[in-house]
């Protein structure tokens, strides 16, 4: 059986980590005797010790999928936006697949829900026919296998955040706090490290409402072609059938007689600058 849980879904910065833990169904009793609990109820120290135990345990297996803030921002800000839930579901399915590919025979999956549990369960059951899927809220405190997964995920996220290596050559502090938008440390980090053109280094999730708000209020206005195209679609429809005005002067060769060679390259003669 395999349990899945996530860490760092809400924070405005840092990785989102999906973790899995697995063991034999026959070892259910053994697993229950271990001290795995919902990672949120444990201290950092306790979590780290339990993760060491998990790593050393022959009866247990584990894995993590790290989704960087850059990947998350990129996917959520595409022309066809990809929701956070979709990313989560794919990551979870990916962890199951990795375990199967590694030769683990999976009969039962336990997952803490993201979005509607019914929908999530349906996705997993469709992808892994014959596997009994249990998708439930609070699974991380209900099923020890999910608790173990939550520890793997949480410790990995915290470790990466603590040891974050900026790709950008910026002198930003690493006093990120928890990364939750409400955390005073996170707030002051966001306050102190803003750059009006670029916003933030790529540790920050640009697709978060918090980041958008700061960029709008304090940043230089940036207008994306991808967003403008969407807005123009409405305008084009409104102008449909409007009588075209006659070309007046040929200062620009944008008229109807422009050769296809230039039209297809969007080239036109310019006289005014």
């Amino acid at each position, binding site marked *: 059986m395999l349990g899945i849980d996530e860490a760092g879904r809400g924070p405005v910065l840092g990785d989102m980590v999906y973790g899995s833990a697995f063991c034999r169904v026959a070892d259910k009793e053994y697993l229950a005797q271990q001290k795995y609990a919902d990672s949120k109820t444990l201290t950092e120290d306790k979590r780290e010790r339990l993760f060491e135990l998990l790593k050393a345990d022959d009866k247990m297996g584990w894995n993590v999928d790290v989704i960087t803030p850059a990947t998350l*921002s990129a996917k959520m800000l*595409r022309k066809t936006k990809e929701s956070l839930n979709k990313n989560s579901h794919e990551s979870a399915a990916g962890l199951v697949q990795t375990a199967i590919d590694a030769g683990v025979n999976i009969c039962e999956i336990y997952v803490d829900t993201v979005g509607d549990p019914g929908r999530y369960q349906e996705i997993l059951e469709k992808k892994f026919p014959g596997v009994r899927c249990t998708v439930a809220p609070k699974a991380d405190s209900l099923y020890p296998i999910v608790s173990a997964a939550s520890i793997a995920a949480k410790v990995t996220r915290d470790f990466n955040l603590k040891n974050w290596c900026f790709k950008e*050559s910026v002198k930003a502090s690493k006093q990120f706090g928890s990364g939750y938008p409400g955390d005073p440390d996170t707030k002051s980090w966001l306050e102190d490290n803003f750059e009006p053109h670029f916003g933030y280094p790529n540790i920050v999730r640009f697709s978060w409402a918090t980041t958008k708000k700061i960029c709008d209020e304090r940043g230089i206005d940036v207008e994306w072609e991808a967003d403008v195209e969407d807005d123009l679609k409405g305008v084009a429809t409104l102008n449909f059938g409007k009588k075209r005005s006659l070309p007046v002067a040929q200062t620009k060769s944008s008229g109807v007689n422009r050769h296809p*060679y*230039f039209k297809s390259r969007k080239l036109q003669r310019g006289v005014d600058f």
Partner: protein
Amino acid sequence: MDCAEARRSHIQFSTDKLTEGKLQTHLVPCAIKSNGVAPISQYFRPEATDQVIDGKTVLHAALRGRELNGARLGVPDGYNGYVMRSSQPASSETTWTAESQFEELTYWLHDVVPTASDLLPRALEWAELAKEAHAPISAADVEAMME
């Protein structure tokens, strides 16, 4: 705009105003509503990927969280790239002054990968063709063609 109303503009290529060296220029798929100095080399870090399309290495970068794919384009043979700044004096005349030079620019696309059929590389093809189209034809050339 009517010809008679056209604003007058000058282009000035005084080399003494040109900064030393060649610039790294980027064409991004967005309008940044600012005209000043920005810490580009600190924040904008293009990386070469393993992908090669139409003979060009695809570059990867991010800007305000958006994923960009880019390719380098050389300025066509016989041309120079200039970064111009316009002065807006009280009169209706505009003077454009070359501030710096570039030999190569990187153009960036959002979501899609750059290919040889993108508008910009295709537009620059005209430079090569224009040379042929505007080359003087001698009487001997015409006679040769007639035969």
